[in-house]
């Protein structure tokens, strides 16, 4: 047996390990940026004037987006799916935050092309890199969004914002209805979808609690 058998393989594997290590470091940068947005989102829960905070959040998301662009540019050609497990969960979190800010701002569900505009608001010259958002990442992001909104709904009731709970419950039940149109396979996304109904249930309970006490105008 030639020893070149393994030295060749060793070269492949070494290269892959080096690449993975480098991407992991970039991913940590993304994570740090995502955490910054998470702090801002947390402050929204009890903020009386929501619109005052949105600008900062939009800006923080652009930071996140530029980190992700840096990361994705470093992925070798055609090997996106070899490594994308590394950043899927932080990207889904960025998607959730993007959708949240768009919901608070425009009261609408952002799709992937809207998210791209949020992430890269400056007029992109032709072919400038944008964050690549996979369908699955987007959908997991929506699951995160619903769970964030159900928490936020509870918290905003405690500062007397009852209207928020009503709107959020309506918005999330539409997302849930939308998810019912999808065929899943038995994977992570399906499990997340299974969890979504509990978040929506919580949102509806909050609405029930405030309406039965006559707190809605």
């Amino acid at each position: 047996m030639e020893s070149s058998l393994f030295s060749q393989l060793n070269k492949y594997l070494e290269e892959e390990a080096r690449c993975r290590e480098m991407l992991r470091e970039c991913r940590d940068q993304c994570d740090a940026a995502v955490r910054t947005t998470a702090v801002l989102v947390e402050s929204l829960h009890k903020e009386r004037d929501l619109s005052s905070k949105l600008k900062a959040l939009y800006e923080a998301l652009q930071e996140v987006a530029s980190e992700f662009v840096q990361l994705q540019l470093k992925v070798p050609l055609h090997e996106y799916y070899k490594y994308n497990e590394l950043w899927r969960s932080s990207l889904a979190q960025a998607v959730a935050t993007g959708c949240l800010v768009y919901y608070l701002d425009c009261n609408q569900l952002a799709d992937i092309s809207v998210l791209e505009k949020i992430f890269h608001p400056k007029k992109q010259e032709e072919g400038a890199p944008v964050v690549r958002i996979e369908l699955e990442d987007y959908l997991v992001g929506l699951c995160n969004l619903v769970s964030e909104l159900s928490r936020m709904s509870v918290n905003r009731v405690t500062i007397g914002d009852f209207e928020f709970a009503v709107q959020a419950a309506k918005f999330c039940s539409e997302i849930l209805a939308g998810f019912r149109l999808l065929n899943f396979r038995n994977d992570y996304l399906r499990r997340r979808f299974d969890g979504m109904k509990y978040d929506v249930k919580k949102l509806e309970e909050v609405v029930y609690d405030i309406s039965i006490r006559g707190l809605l105008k």
Partner: protein
Amino acid sequence: MLKQSSASYLFQKLSEDLSFLIEKRERLVKASRDVTYQSKKVIYLLHRAVDEEPLSVFSKAEEQLHTIRKLICDLILSELSLENYYRFHEVFTTALQEYTEARLFCAYLKENRIMTLDELNAEIAHQSEQPTEGLREETTQQFITSISPKDYILGLVDSSGELMRHCINCASRNETDKAFQVECVLRQLSTEIKFVGVYLSRWNDNLDNKLEAIRANLGKVENACYQLYIRGMEFRQH
């Protein structure tokens, strides 16, 4: 206000995209099962080479391997763009491992050597170049890397089990030379695979178990050879 129609329109669109991916995955799952099953059959066939006329067994095995390569090209690789290879890799990796195992075992029995990853891939690439209708340039390029290093290594580890079985077969028939040859190859394999072991342990599909399996196989082969040797000495003395 949120426009009801826009959200449900969005999800209808997403539903199509998601179903497209899921259906592709299902087709790959089916094809992989096929490839795995056919490869297993080749391995069993090859084990019979000690009982039957070896040359006819080899030509039959090679014919079947050819058919499996066709399955790999037509049913798996044709579904994949260059980028999608790694997207669905987990679906068909076991199939490629099983094929690798069968191909390596066949080459060892026939030519007494371990084929390299590049040789295996060149063989598949060669097959895909034979004119099948409507082959795009993009897919032909893909065929060059149809078996990944990881598939190859895992297939190689599995084929060590087949080599062990083959060695025991030879030993039980007193085919001393063949048995000792296998022992030699397995030892080399078990030693050299340690070089890539650093990277192997980072893949979390119980590779440590697999490496342990090579060692266990080597142990069995060494014992069989020891028995053969001892018995051989006995005969010579009396």
